[in-house]
């Protein structure tokens, strides 16, 4: 009789009942097969030990909560420019804005205290900070730590033509040279005014929020209570091509990039304090700290479980390229002379990049 195969010998170790009787009888009486069986047993034991799962059992309830949050989250919105948002104010109230605001504050580190509003940050470029969806949900909402006041929140206004859009926004409307395949028709023009968000830290509110969450709040440093940060962005303008299903097939937007101002506190103080607040994941905090180097890079929080990020050159500027993992949406964002431009749509990255590079 021929010797059973190495596969049969291997199965004999795990599932002897799955091996035929003649094969089993042969192996029992065959020195060569017994040697091979011993070798298979030894290899299996060593590899099995190396592949043993030594990690603690996962928390199924917590896992489900995370997945439910991810599946119920709204569709990923890879672009960050105010022109892409339905209502900029709504967006700023979302938790992701907290990360943005923290990032802006960080980027201003190194600026001394001021008695009046002092510009501490002007966006020169953007860079993506990857967060998991669960992290975005868990980020501290700044309204729990103080008062947030929005001004100029009039939302997007539809205007009849490009000339009106340029006149109202004061921005040059990017001209799209050639539309990507599948995008047809005339665009709609939308304009948004300048938007300001002012955050005034309140030690009392912060302590209350922490107590409600059952967490201990780090003691605020002296002078922080009542100090403010103001973030200005816009105006902005957008051209939107809509597909037959009503989904924007292509958005080309431009806006005055965010600028931040401070009042009444050393920025290092506020930065370090915000970074110590419960809820900000450690690796995200570390990443945000790296943005202090030049004081001009705007961190763009993106859900990394939905979106992949990379960089590319557009017009000699480094641009951030975002693409949803299912490749349904792509966007490219870059900043030039204090103006942020975004090209986004139901397209792939090559298509958004070629639109971006051909903008007039």
């Amino acid at each position, binding site marked *: 009789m021929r010797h059973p195969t190495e*596969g049969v010998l291997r199965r004999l170790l795990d599932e002897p009942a799955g091996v035929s009787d003649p094969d089993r009888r042969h192996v029992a009486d065959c020195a060569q097969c017994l040697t091979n069986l011993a070798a298979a047993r030894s290899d299996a034991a060593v590899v099995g030990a190396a592949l043993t799962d030594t990690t603690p059992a996962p928390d199924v309830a917590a896992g489900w909560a995370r997945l439910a949050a991810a599946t119920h989250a709204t569709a990923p919105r890879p672009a960050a420019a105010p022109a892409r948002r339905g209502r900029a104010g709504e967006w700023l109230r979302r938790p992701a804005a907290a990360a943005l605001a923290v990032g802006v504050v960080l980027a201003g580190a190194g600026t001394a205290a001021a008695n009046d509003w002092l510009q501490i940050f002007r966006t020169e470029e953007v860079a993506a900070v990857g967060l998991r969806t669960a992290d975005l949900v868990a980020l501290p909402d700044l309204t729990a730590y103080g008062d947030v006041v929005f001004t100029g929140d009039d939302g997007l206004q539809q205007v009849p033509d490009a000339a009106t859009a340029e006149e109202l926004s004061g921005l040059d409307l990017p001209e799209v040279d050639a539309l990507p395949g599948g995008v047809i028709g005339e665009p709609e023009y939308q304009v948004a005014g300048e938007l300001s968000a002012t955050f005034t830290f309140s030690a009392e509110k912060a302590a209350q929020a922490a107590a409600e969450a059952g967490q201990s709040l780090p003691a605020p440093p002296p002078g922080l209570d009542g100090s403010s940060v103001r973030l200005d962005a816009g105006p902005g303008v957008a051209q939107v091509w809509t597909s037959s299903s009503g989904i924007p097939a292509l958005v080309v937007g431009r806006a005055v990039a965010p600028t931040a101002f401070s009042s009444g506190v050393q920025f290092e103080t506020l930065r370090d304090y915000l970074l110590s607040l419960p809820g900000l994941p450690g690796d995200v905090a570390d990443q945000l700290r790296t943005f202090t180097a030049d004081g001009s890079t705007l961190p763009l929080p993106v859900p990394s479980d939905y979106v992949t990020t990379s960089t590319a050159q557009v017009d000699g500027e480094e641009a951030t390229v975002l693409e949803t993992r299912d490749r349904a949406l792509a966007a490219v964002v870059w900043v030039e002379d204090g103006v942020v431009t975004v090209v986004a749509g139901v397209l792939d990255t090559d298509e958004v990049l070629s639109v971006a590079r051909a903008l007039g």
Partner: protein
Amino acid sequence: MATSVRPDLEEVFRLEYARVVGVAARVLGSRDQAEDVAQEVFLSFGRSRVQAGEAGGWLAVAAAHTALNLIRSGRRRTSREETVAATEHAVVPDVADTVLTREDRSRVRAALATLPRTQAVALVLRHSGLSYAEVATALDLSPGSIGTTVRRAESALRKELNRHASSD
């Protein structure tokens, strides 16, 4: 774009989550990373039309592939926290463990990513407790070929360990 999520997602999740994390953890050696992989896999499953009866095998194969991709693309984090966590949890009451260092484990995991993909996935599924029949169904292979596939993978990984042991 909003995508609809299949209605049986929660039921399947509660049934399969621990095993899916386990499959990924065998490849990655980190629960945090394994849970990230599991989330990604269940998100895909939630948007898929995989039949409920095939969900277990589909999820296990997807977890193995995703975890192997993670190793292969070198995206693994090697943060201090993770190293500490791995050390804390590396308590294995197994005789073979006494001769395997943590470096050996890492080496085996790295070598996994270099194996032919079917071999690597079959090996991980088998060591995750799937039967030969289940592995065969999940990978659309004949049950008779699983033993050979697993054996070859183990032999290759053992050689990888021996190669490093002799060069140390």
